[in-house]
């Protein structure tokens, strides 16, 4: 867990260039004067409250925080944050945020997106932001449905989903956003659930401290078009067997009294869920989010059944150190000045080959 202090983020290296707030902040400092217009009961409310509640902990000057979003229900988010914000166009928020973050390293830049925005129309920008490792924190609200266009299936909907556009069931296999992100060379990937404020806040905390792009998939309930999509992960009894809580450095165990665990299959090298016994207890995988290799994090992301969501890991899958794009971009500018001196426009325009016409 990253350290925080009353003074704010003095110890968080990832935010060292972002000015600190002069006074202590509270949640209401981050509420804008705009009326929130999500449907009553939408999971977005909980996420908004969690983010607004978490921001004071960072202690950043709020004028140096920017929320950028695309299009969709979740993308209204910036209007409700009393920071700088841009509600852009469908799918393009990671690209816009990349330009902002790489030209302004004194900003804390957050992207808010949804499963359609990030994974359908904006899939290209998402994967490239992740591979570049720009200093962005991406909150991907996944409700497995298109809400704003009133209920078509999304790229994370389960196969066979009956919706307005798929009366006989959807045909396309869903993306697993965590697998996708790890495959796209993401340096930080986590999953959390809208209703678990404590867990959500902890994941935000770790993402904020991460240097580079952080992707947080947030399972979010759309109570109008896909109500109960994550109920199995929320219902206390079912969740015991369905949810695998990942904690760095801890054995991956879940179920009643930790009766179940994750081991590596000696034959295939893949991961599998077993009932923990005294014989196999020593083989239970210890979660290593910091591992340079993404292999095990990817294998963890494949444990969940896309239909039933059984064995869904939540928490930080991967949090690895990798060069950060905007840092390196700035370093190249500094190096260029060291090597060639600060740009001299007159010399540039003149070039090497000139001739003079005299009167």
């Amino acid at each position: 867990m990253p350290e925080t202090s009353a003074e704010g983020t003095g110890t968080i290296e990832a935010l060292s260039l972002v000015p600190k707030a002069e006074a202590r902040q509270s949640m209401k400092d981050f509420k804008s004067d705009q009326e929130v217009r999500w449907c009553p009961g939408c999971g977005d409310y909980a996420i908004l409250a969690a983010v607004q509640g978490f921001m004071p902990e960072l202690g950043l000057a709020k004028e140096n925080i920017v929320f950028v979003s695309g299009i969709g229900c979740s993308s209204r988010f910036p209007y409700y944050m009393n920071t700088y914000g841009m509600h852009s166009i469908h799918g393009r928020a990671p690209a816009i945020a990349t330009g902002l973050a790489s030209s302004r390293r004194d900003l804390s830049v957050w992207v808010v997106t949804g499963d359609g925005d990030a994974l359908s129309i904006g899939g290209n920008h998402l994967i490239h932001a992740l591979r570049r490792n720009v200093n962005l924190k991406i909150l991907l609200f996944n409700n497995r449905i298109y809400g704003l266009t009133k209920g078509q299936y999304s790229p994370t909907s389960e196969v066979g989903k009956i919706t307005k556009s798929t009366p006989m069931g959807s045909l396309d296999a869903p993306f697993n956003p965590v697998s996708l992100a790890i495959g796209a060379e993401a340096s930080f990937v986590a999953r959390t659930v809208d209703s678990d404020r404590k867990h959500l806040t902890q994941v935000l905390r770790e993402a904020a401290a991460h240097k580079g792009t952080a992707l947080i998939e947030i399972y979010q309930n759309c109570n109008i078009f896909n109500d109960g999509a994550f109920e199995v992960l929320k219902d206390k009894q079912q969740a015991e067997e369905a949810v695998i809580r990942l904690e760095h450095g801890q054995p991956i165990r879940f179920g009643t009294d930790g009766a179940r665990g994750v081991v590596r299959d000696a034959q295939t090298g893949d991961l599998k869920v077993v009932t923990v016994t005294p014989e196999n207890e020593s083989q239970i995988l210890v979660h290593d989010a910091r591992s340079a290799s993404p292999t095990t994090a990817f294998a963890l992301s494949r444990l969940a059944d896309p239909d039933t969501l059984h064995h869904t890991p939540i928490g930080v899958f991967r949090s690895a150190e990798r060069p950060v794009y905007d840092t390196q971009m700035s370093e190249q500018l500094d190096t260029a000045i060291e090597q060639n001196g600060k740009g001299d426009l007159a010399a540039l325009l003149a070039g090497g080959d000139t001739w003079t016409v005299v009167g």
Partner: protein
Amino acid sequence: MTSQVSSPAEQADEAVVGEQRKPAGTKDVRRLDRVIIRFAGDSGDGMQLTGDRFTSETASFGNDLSTLPNFPAEIRAPAGTLPGVSSFQLHFADHDILTPGDAPNVLVAMNPAALKANIGDLPRGAEIIVNTDEFTKRAMQKVGYEASPLEDGSLDGYSVHPVPLTTLTVEALKEFDLTRKEAERSKNMFALGLLSWMYHRPTEGTEKFLTSKFAKKPAIAAANIAAFRAGWNFGETTEDFAVSYEIAPATTAFPVGTYRNISGNLALSYGLIAASRQADLPLFLGSYPITPASDILHELSKHKNFGVRTFQAEDEIAGIGAALGAAFGGSLGVTTTSGPGVALKSETIGLAVSLELPLLVIDIQRGGPSTGLPTKTEQADLLQAMFGRNGEAPVPIVAPCTPADCFDAALEAARIALTYRTPVMLLSDGYLANGSEPWRIPELDELPDLTVQFAQGPNHTLQDGSEVFWPYKRDPHTLARPWAIPGTPGLEHRIGGIEKEDGTGNISYSPANHDFMVRTRQAKIDGIQVPDLEVDDPHEAKTLVLGWGSTYGPITAAVRRLRKAGESIAQAHLRHLNPFPRNLGVVLGRYEKVVIPEMNLGQLATLVRAKYLVDAHSYNQVNGMPFKAEQLAKALKEAIDA
């Protein structure tokens, strides 16, 4: 004779590199006022490099010049075929010229394909220098020559110089430790040396260039220099070249100043860096590689010591998205592309219209639709620039008229974007981008002041007396909204593509507000201050020729021809396509006839007819090449007489 040289190794001695060679003076020298040379060969023959070098020599000599590179889209099209021919045309003169010239006086044909592809453009009597080594039976058959054109009398009307360029080059380099194939590669430098002798070009620049280009391969540098000198000496020695030519510097054509040769894309890149300096804003380029715009990305990426950030994006949309994001953060945001890229960027341009942030969208137009003709020129994106977005989304349009003018056009586009907080389209094209001409290097204090004032504090007082910041409260004169960048305390605000309430910028679906905002955005663009259109009309003509963009050179050359022939014609050229200059309607009304030549099917004509109800006559060419002055003069004459 070859007294300067005793052996190839000595020839390439670095100590003598850069020495100016002078003809020995044993041959006739004729004075010419202008020459058009075309170098043509296979895509891999180095014709663009040869042309570039001849151009540099010519520029440093002080001639006026204009160039036309013409090459296939394929990097290495099949060798020896007609589609694989790459050429470089250069027009240079002792006076002010406007175009790369209609018809070459001299063709250098490195192979049968180059001869066949270009012979049709040559007037009778033109000189042809052919590389006879490449005229093998097989090579000739490949392009459909049944008999050798060098022997069947088909070139009788021309002055043909058969030169075994390959053999001579290999012979000149025999003392170098090179394979035959490696040695053959220097034949373009042999040709360059020969032409440099013929036209008394200064040679030291080319020798220095070769030394530095091949700094890491000194043997290759030495071989190329040796081939270059051998070509020069061959001209000096051989009987076949009895005459050499002098074209005096164009001293009277140019205003006093220091000059250099510059291509459109280079001038545009420098214009962007200059705009960044004059605005005191960091430059951010978001771009995706596309012909013929990529050279701007390449150039700007070399100048990080000017604080220039270049971002090679994953696609066209991300290129403009990142530029817009940077603009939100207070950078001078730029995206560079060609027509297909503009199509992809349309939605983001619309967002920039709605956000009212400054942004430069540079379209180096090429042949379309779709992939079209990537390496050829066209100006058929005007209506796309004007209307290619959903909703009412007006965007100012600026067009440079010559390669060097791309510098000023970039500054002008930046001025409009920064003053009015709007995306601006700059329409260059392939001809301007790759063509070059002399440019008077401006003094820095001649450059416009583009400094901007970011919003610093509240700009509005509510009824209860409290001071607030309204992101859409406009400047009453320019209608520009404040530019409040993140990091400014107290001005936290949210903007987006949804319709905004006038003033507050909050989401608004109010019918009356939307109507007001649509009209206000349009009024802002319509109100942009642009200079009046200047008309060149010395004889009170009845016919006006109106152009825009890269047709300036050919149109002006055609107008000169007509006036020389005693015709009266007025000429005007538009730099601003949106908004048009205030006086355009009045100007058009003064003439009985208005002719608009364009490299499209009449896009400016459509705009002019719609806006001013003028029965403008459209003259069009969409063959991927610039207009020829003679053809245009004929068309204008017909219009005058009609």
